[in-house]
Structures are given as C-alpha cells and as structure tokens.
C-alpha cells in the first residue's frame, strides 16, 4: 500500500515550526554526542587506570620467580665450585620465560635475573654500613660498565673441579664497586672490605675494580640501586646500604662464600604498562592466577620454580574500581538520557499543540491517520537522522570512536515522539466518541480514566522499586539497577506532578481570599495548567538527577579526603622496614621535635594478624601503640577518636576491636597465636574506630602488650602538623603524606573521570531541565496570553500581565526547586551505598552522603528564576508587537 504523502503540507509544517524542530535536532545531536562518547571515554579511562595501577603497583605488579640452589656437595662432603653458575642463572631465566603463558609473557618486560646475598655489616668501626652482593643479568647480558680503576671481578681459582671444606676459612669473592661507593667506603682495587653477618661470621670480600655504569637507566640497576649509589635506611634507621657487583666469573665464588639460604637467585618480570588495556588486563589476571596455582610452594626445598606476584590482586582491585566507575557513569548517563527523552517528548508536545488545528483540518478533509503519521515520520526522519549523524560525527571527531548502545534507542524514541504525539492528537480531534450525555456514563468514563492513570503510575513506581531493590541486592552489574536513580526520580516526580493540581487549587483558594487580583489571576492560571504532567516530570526529574550528580561529586570529593586521612592515619605516615624496627622510636622522637609537628607516635602495625576467638578466626590489622599518645594524635585529625582502654589484668590484654562482620564484639575474649611463643590472650574492651583502609582492626596498648610478653617492635610512625611531612621526609624512610595521597587519588584516571562526568552530567541535566521548562512554557503560551488579553479587556495593565504570567509558571518551578534537590539527596542516600564509592575513595566503608544543599539550591533557584523571567519577558516582547484585538481574534499564538 502506498501512502499518499502531501509534500506541500510536510514542507509547510516544517517551515512554520523550524524553531522547535531545530531545537529537537540540537537536543538529539547533544545527547547522541554524550551517549556516543561516554562508553569510549569510560573504556579509554579504564585503559589509563589499568596502566597507572600497574605502574604505581611497581613491585607488586612484577612477576617474580625464585628457585633454590641445587645441592653443591662434593664427593668428600665439601662444597663443589660451579664455574658455569652464571650460565645456570641465565638458564633459570629462560626456563621461567618458557613457563609463562604467551599472553602473559607479552604483557611483561624482558626478565632480569638476580643473585642477591644477605646484607652484611661493614665492620670498619665508623657509621652503620652494610654491604649486599649482587649479580644482575638481563637478556642482553650483565649491565654494561666501564672500569675506571682495576678490573672486572675475577674467579678466585682456575680449578674447575675444586671442592672446599664446609667449615673452612671464608672463601674469597671479588666484587666491583661504583665510583661513589668506593669513595664512600674509602677502598680501591685490591682492598678487602671488612664485613660480617649478624652472627659475626666474617666474609672475605675483595674489591677487584671501580666501575662507572654505561647506562644508569638500565632496568637491571633498578632492582639493586644500592650497587650504584649508597642507599640510606634500607637496613635500619641511620644505616647505609652499599652494593658489590658480582661478575659471571666471581659468582661461583659468591656461591661458595655464602650458605645456600644466604644467597638467593630470582628472575623478575616487570609488567609493561604500555602494552596493557583494561580488556587485556582481565585476561591477564586469569593467567596470573593460573600461574600461581601451578607454582611450587615457597617452603619447598627444591629447585622447582616458585612464582610470586601480586599482579592478580592489583588487577582484581582495579576490576572492582573500574566496575564501580563504569556503574556510576552508567547511572549518570541513564539519568541524562531519561531527562533528554522527557525534553524530546515536551518538544513533540509543543509541535503537536502548534499543529493541532492544521492536523485536525487535514483529517477533516479526508487525510487518513496512517498518511498523517507517515508525513510526520518523514519530517521526523529529516530532522532526527541528520542530527544523530552530526552527533555521531562529532563524537568520532572528538573521541575517536562512538558507541551506539545508548545512542540508538534514544534516537529511535526521539524519532517516534513527534509522529506519535501528532497522530494521537489528530485521532483525538476527529474521533467519533464524544463525552456521553448520560451522567452515570460520564462518571464511569472518569473513573476509568482515573483507574488507567493509577495503573500507569503504579507500574512506574513498581518498576522504580524493583530497580532499587535489585540495585541493593545485586549491585549495578545489570542495566535495570543502573537505571534505579533515574526511575526513582521519574516515579517520585510523577507523584509530585499528581499532587500539583490539588496544591495549586489550595493556593487558588487562598488567593481568592487575598485582595491582590494579580495573585488570584496567577493562581487561577497555574491551577488551569497544573494538570500537565510532562513539564513537572521533566523539570523535577532533571533537577533531582542534577542534584544527585552533584551529590555524587561532593560525596566522592569528601570520600577521597576522608579516605586519604584513613589510609594515612595522620598528616604523614612513615613505614619503617623490619630491619629498622629498633630505630623507629628514635625516628618518632626526632620527628616530634621538628618544627611544625604537633604529634608523632610510633606503633607496631601488623596487617592481616590472625586472632582466634571462641568459635571464630578473624584476620585484622593489629595496632600496638601508646594509646594515650595515639588518642591525642587522633584528636588532632578528623578521624574518629580512640576511646579509653581499661588497664589490663595479668596477662589478659584489653583491646579495642572493630570487625566488618561483627565477629569480634566488646566483651569477647580472644587470643593472638604466635609461632613458637605463647599466645597473647586478649579481651575486647571496647569498639575501635575505623583505622586504615581495611574494616577490621584491633588496637592494644603497647605497655599492656609488653607486660603480657609481646615484643614491641614499632614499624610505623604517624605524625600531625604542618611540618610533619617535611620532618618525615628528612628521615629517609618511606613516607606517605596525606596531601600527596589525596592529590594522587584525585588525579587518578577513574576518580578524575568520574568527578568530571558528575559535573558535566549535573550541568547538562540542569540545562535540559530548563530547556524542558521553556518548551512547556512555550506550549502553554497561547492559552496564557489569550487569558491575559481577556483580563486586559477587563482593565488589567500590560505590565501586570507579566506578573500574572510569572505566577502561572511559578508552581512547577517552585516545586522543582524545593523537591528536586531533596529528591536528589534522597536518591544519593538510597543508591550511593550499592554503588560502592569506597572502592574509588579508598575508604573502609562507603562515604557518608554529602549534599551541598546551599550550592544546589542557589544554582537551582537562580537558574529557574532567570528562566521564568526570561521566558515571560520574551513572550511579552513577542506579543507586545501585536495588538490586543489581534490576540483576541486569533488567540494567543
């Protein structure tokens, strides 16, 4: 069947309504741009986040394999020298490389093999100096050096089959020293470095030569930087580590100089962040898990490969973060699309109102509904498709690619809205069914209408509730939960739209009692137009979702700040290596004495300490600290305070406890088992605050713990005050400054991307809401100005008409300004928990919802006020040019 399209009508309508049609095209282009660009941007941000996470994880992301040495016992019970040991080390690298899955191998940099001795004390009687012997090997060989004095380390013997007795004199081993280290140690070629181990066993280490690295940036040096330059505090506060470089020739001597457990061989594969994408990282995580599952256990005393890496854990954390960020992006995008659809529907309604007469006339002249619908579809195609293509083109231009997942459904709805509204209007205008004359039939018709409307409202509310429940139960993995905020906003806005007519009638009753005619006319106009659902729905939903986006932004910002406090625990945190534990109190004292430092507390922090209760085992963070000093320090931070701990009785150590699953509660008795020592008995004396990124924590007083037999070896120092960071950095230990951490987290791709998207979404939603409001006002303008013209025939002054018009438009604006932000805050309260913001903010628990009320209200009120005044001023200016008689003759159009 061929539909008789009347092209002059199509062209005429399009020309007459060029403005609204252009507006529709603009909205379609903008929304397609946003919907098309968001998924690729999320993908590229995820890729950036993957690379950054792997880059930041550094050592944790490296894949490391170790293998014990094979026995080197000779036929007479001594140890055999292995002259080709360097080849064995190279072979270990090749063996490890062959064990890797090709996919995993391609994501890793070439391996670096190392042989490292234990750290030896330099016994030259001056300051604390330690020496560690290193053999480094890349796939290109040992790192290139230039010998500026002496020569490369040589073998101690030419005997290929030498066997040395087990308890003989220390076996000599030659090492090379870098220029700075040789100068610092005051040794040169041929000198012996006096060293011994912790048991005071001497070692015969001789300097063969002094070298200068050809390329200090060689990746091999990165694994043992102390070979090039002395490294402070590696082996304890105040100590300096030096490194002696072994050569392939001197490596066999090092093997003989140390016991097997004093010289470790390992191969390290650093992850290559540049080759990683989020998609490849997911496959990589599975391959790493498989590799670790097939690895020999570290306790095994054989030469099998023992793989160790935290890369899978890094990628798992990253996956959670990306899932969170993606979900939040979906939530925001769905919100924008929902409001954009409502705005498109308002534009379609405006077009239909403007064309009602023409469409009715066409229908009365014999045009069929399918023909009218086809004409409207043709027009809609001519507007929507080019606009969508423009949006997609801009997306490709700006982002490089465009996603159609969200854009296509939106374009389809935008395409259909105008034709559907127009066809329904034409059908209604010319249908035979009239209002029944019979009163009971009219009542029945009204009730049917009410029931139909109630069923629709109930369906929307039920869908919103289902989405909310799904979001709370299943998270945001599926689409329906991601739509929960938008659906809830629409459902509540619908309820508010239903309440608006009785509300305006109430205001009208009050206005009737007032002496101001303008108030009465404004209220009367408002009551006459309050039954229009779409404008209230669009504006309130837009303001609510815009407030939600702003709440998401503010909550994330606040969560990041709190997360930085929780992770750091103070203005600055120092992690002291276990070798330096004895010097930690000294570090704390030194920092406390520095200018600008208010508090400094040393604590022993044990991550993943295992506690055993009556019928439960808990893994928690154990903090052993001077609780009085710690309480004073916490009081100097926004972190929750530390409640007092009662003094212990006997060997029962009172503890403050906090567990996410409530397995440790105040009043419970539990114990801390210790290998080879008696377990420490504890009693939960109170609730601990959240300290650190984890949710489970046990805090005990250092004095009580020591009295119960625990050795207090502090490894952490917390400090507060403006000078804390500087004082901590000067100590040379590993420092985490809260402000640095916060800046780093804020600038991380996922956090910064989400924050930007939240702001952009809030701005777009506000603009869409105001646009919808203006469209709705334009749609009702003819009736408004006809009424105002009639009131002018009764004596209303021209300037007063603007006030009456403002009065008509105010209820929807006031409703949106009052209820929109409140609804947005409610949505934040209901949905930010399941959205798991803590994964991005680095907090133990989800951040408390933060709604910047005054900012939202101020922006909303000012924007709405400006829009109302602008719309009325524009309408007034347009109609000012027309005579009152003309308005009365043709209506307010």
């Amino acid at each position, binding site marked *: 069947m061929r539909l008789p399209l009347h092209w002059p009508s199509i062209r005429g309508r399009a020309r007459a309504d060029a403005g609204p049609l252009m507006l529709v095209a603009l909205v379609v282009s903008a929304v397609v741009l946003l919907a098309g660009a968001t998924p690729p941007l999320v993908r590229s941000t995820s890729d950036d986040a993957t690379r950054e996470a792997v880059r930041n994880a550094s050592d944790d992301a490296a894949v490391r394999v170790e293998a014990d040495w094979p026995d080197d016992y000779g036929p007479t019970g001594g140890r055999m020298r292995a002259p080709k040991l360097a080849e064995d080390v190279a072979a270990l690298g090749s063996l490890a490389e062959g064990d890797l899955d090709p996919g995993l191998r391609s994501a890793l940099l070439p391996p670096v093999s190392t042989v490292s001795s234990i750290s030896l004390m330099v016994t030259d009687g001056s300051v604390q100096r330690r020496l560690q012997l290193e053999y480094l090997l890349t796939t290109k060989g040992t790192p290139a050096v230039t010998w500026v004095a002496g020569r490369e380390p040589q073998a101690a013997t030419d005997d290929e089959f030498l066997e040395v007795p087990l308890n003989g004199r220390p076996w000599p081993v030659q090492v090379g020293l870098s220029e700075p280290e040789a100068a610092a140690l005051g040794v040169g070629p041929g000198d012996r470095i006096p060293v011994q181990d912790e048991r005071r066993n001497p070692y015969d280490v001789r300097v063969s030569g002094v070298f200068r690295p050809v390329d200090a940036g060689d990746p091999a040096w990165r694994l043992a930087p102390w070979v090039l330059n002395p490294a402070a505090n590696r082996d304890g506060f105040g100590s300096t580590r030096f490194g002696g470089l072994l050569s392939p020739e001197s490596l066999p001597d090092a093997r003989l100089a140390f016991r097997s457990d004093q010289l470790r061989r390992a191969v390290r594969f650093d992850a290559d962040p540049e080759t990683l994408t989020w998609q490849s990282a997911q496959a990589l995580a599975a391959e790493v898990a498989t590799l670790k599952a097939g690895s020999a256990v570290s306790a095994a005393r054989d030469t099998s490969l023992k793989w160790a890496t935290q890369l899978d854990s890094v990628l798992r954390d990253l996956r959670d973060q990306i899932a969170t960020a993606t979900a939040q992006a979906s939530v925001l995008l769905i919100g924008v699309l929902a409001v954009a659809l409502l705005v498109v529907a308002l534009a379609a309604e405006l077009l239909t109102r403007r064309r009602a007469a023409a469409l009715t006339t066409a229908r009365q002249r014999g045009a069929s509904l399918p023909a009218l619908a086809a004409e409207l579809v043709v027009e809609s195609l001519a507007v929507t498709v080019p606009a969508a293509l423009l949006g997609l083109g801009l997306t490709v231009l700006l982002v490089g690619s465009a996603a159609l997942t969200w854009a296509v459904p939106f374009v389809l709805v935008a395409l259909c809205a105008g034709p559907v509204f127009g066809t329904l209007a034409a059908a209604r205008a010319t249908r035979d069914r009239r209002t029944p004359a019979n009163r009971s039939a009219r009542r029945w018709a009204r009730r049917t209408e009410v029931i139909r409307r109630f069923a629709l409202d109930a369906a929307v509310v039920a869908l919103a509730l289902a989405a909310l429940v799904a979001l709370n139960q299943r998270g945001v993995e599926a689409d329906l939960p991601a739509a929960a905020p938008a659906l809830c906003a629409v459902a509540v806005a619908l309820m508010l739209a239903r309440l608006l007519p009785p509300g305006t009638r109430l205001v009208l009753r009050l206005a009737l009692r007032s*002496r101001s*005619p303008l108030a009465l006319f404004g209220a*009367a106009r408002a009551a*006459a137009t309050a039954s229009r659902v779409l404008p209230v729905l669009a504006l309130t939903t837009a303001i609510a979702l815009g407030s939600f986006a702003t709440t998401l932004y503010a909550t994330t910002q606040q969560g990041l700040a709190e997360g930085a406090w929780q992770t750091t625990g103070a203005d600055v945190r120092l992690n002291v290596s276990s070798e330096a534990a004895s010097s930690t109190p000294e570090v704390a004292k030194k920092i406390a004495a520095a200018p600008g430092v208010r508090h400094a507390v040393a604590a022993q922090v044990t991550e993943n300490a295992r506690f055993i209760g009556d019928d439960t085992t808990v893994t928690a963070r154990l903090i052993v600290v001077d609780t009085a000093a710690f309480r004073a320090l916490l009081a100097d931070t926004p972190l929750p305070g530390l409640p007092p701990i009662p003094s212990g009785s006997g060997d029962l150590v009172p503890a403050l406890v906090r567990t996410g699953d409530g397995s440790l509660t105040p009043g419970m008795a539990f114990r801390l088992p210790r290998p080879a020592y008696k377990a420490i008995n504890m009693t939960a004396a109170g609730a601990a605050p959240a300290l650190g990124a984890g949710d489970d924590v046990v805090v005990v007083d250092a004095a009580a713990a020591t009295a119960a037999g625990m050795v207090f070896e502090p490894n952490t120092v917390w400090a507060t005050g403006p000078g804390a960071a500087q004082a901590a950095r000067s100590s040379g230990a590993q420092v985490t400054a809260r402000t640095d951490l916060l800046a780093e987290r804020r600038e991380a791709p996922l956090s910064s991307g989400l924050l930007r998207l939240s702001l952009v979404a809030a701005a777009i939603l506000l603009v869409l809401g105001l646009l919808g409001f203006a469209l709705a006002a334009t749609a009702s303008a003819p009736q408004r100005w006809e009424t105002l013209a009639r009131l002018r025939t*009764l*004596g209303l002054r021209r300037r007063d008409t603007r006030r009456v018009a403002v009065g008509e438009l105010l209820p929807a604006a006031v409703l949106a300004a009052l209820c929109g932000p409140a609804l947005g805050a409610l949505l934040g309260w209901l949905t930010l928990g399941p959205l798991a913001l803590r994964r991005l903010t680095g907090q133990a628990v989800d951040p408390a919802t933060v709604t910047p009320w005054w900012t939202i209200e101020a922006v909303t009120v000012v924007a709405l006020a400006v829009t109302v005044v602008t719309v009325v001023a524009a309408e007034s200016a347009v109609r000012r040019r027309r005579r009152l008689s003309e308005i*009365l*003759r043709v209506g307010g159009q």
Partner: protein
Amino acid sequence: MTGALLSVQGVHRTFGTGPSAVHALNDVSFEVEPGTMVALVGRSGSGKTTLLNVIGGLDRPDAGTVVVDGLDVTGLDEDGLSRLRRERVSYVFQTFGLIPVLSAAENVGVPLRLAKSDPAEREKRVALLLDLVGLADHAQQRPGELSGGQQQRVAIARALAASPRLLIADEPTGQLDAETGLAVMALLRGVVESEGVTAVVATHDPVMMALADRVIRIADGEVTC
C-alpha cells in the same frame, strides 16, 4: 458634539500597506446617546469587529477620534486605556472568555477585584448581577459545568460588574443556538434598561436588530446608515 456617550468621528483603519492594504474602516463617523442600545450590522469582513475594537481602545485608528463618556480614547496611553477598560467600557465576546477554574460568582467578581472594591461590596454586587442574569442558583458552578447560554450570561454579568458606561458586545450569540441566543439578547436589552448602560452590539441576528434602539449598518468599512 452634544450629550452623546460615544462619538466616533472620521475614523480610518487600514491593515497592511501598498496594493495589498485593506481599508477596514473608511471615514466612519457616528454618535450614540447614553442609555441606548445600538446594533452594528454588516456582513463578515465589513469592519464591525474593527470598529468595536477601535471604540473600546483595543486597537488604534490611523485617523479620526473616538470619544467615550467625554474621554478621547485615541489619545490615551496604555495605562489610560487600562483605566478606561476598568472603569468605563466593558466587553462581551463571542467566546465568553471566562476563567475556567473560577466559579461563576468569582468570574463576575474579577472586574471588581481589579477595581479594588471592598470584598463585602463585591459579594453584594456579584449576587445582584447573578440574580439579574438569572444565575443566582449557579453561583458556585464553574464555566465547564454551565451551558453555553449560561456562560454568556455570566460574561454579561461580569461585563456589568464594574458599572461601565459603555458595553461592547461582539456577536454575543454567535456560539449559541437560536433559543439561547434570543434569551441572551433579551437579557442584554434588559440590562441596558435596568443598569442604564449604553450598548453597542455587533450582530447578524435580525431579532437583535429588532431589540436595538438603533441600527448602524456598515459595509466595506463605511457606515451606510
């Protein structure tokens, strides 16, 4: 000019310019005595509505003067015209123009509210006018609950509320059936007599012409008799 309530002298009104210009009123002059009812008769497009608009200050003539109750309408500014419409001239339109959310009584009270009348006085006057137009029992009903004739009677009551000197009605029976139209015309005739108001009514209806004190015919923008 003598004791005429309405004096129209040499009024011209042209719409458009050049060859397509339409001369809606061409040197129209006449006077109407106080307390009389004038039927303005003519074919569609003859200029009736334009003339009524010019008289009521809804439109301005290109030339000529219109004096209502001693006041030169053509020389008034916007505020002056508003005051004129609030105090001296009122309208009844073909399409009633009632506010749908207000009751009949509240609609009638609108001009009195604009005139800042005392509420008690207003209520008394509204009740009186509704009684006058026979709608005392329908005071609390909204326009949507009233028939077309009843709505037009409410419109007439509203037009009389502020005690105007001149009532202008533009085809007040245009949307009514014959019987209802006759009742409305009879009402107009009655209020002219009872309220002492002067009325100019544009109509096609011969019955209305019979009820009028005087008939002014207009054709192609010119008064013919």
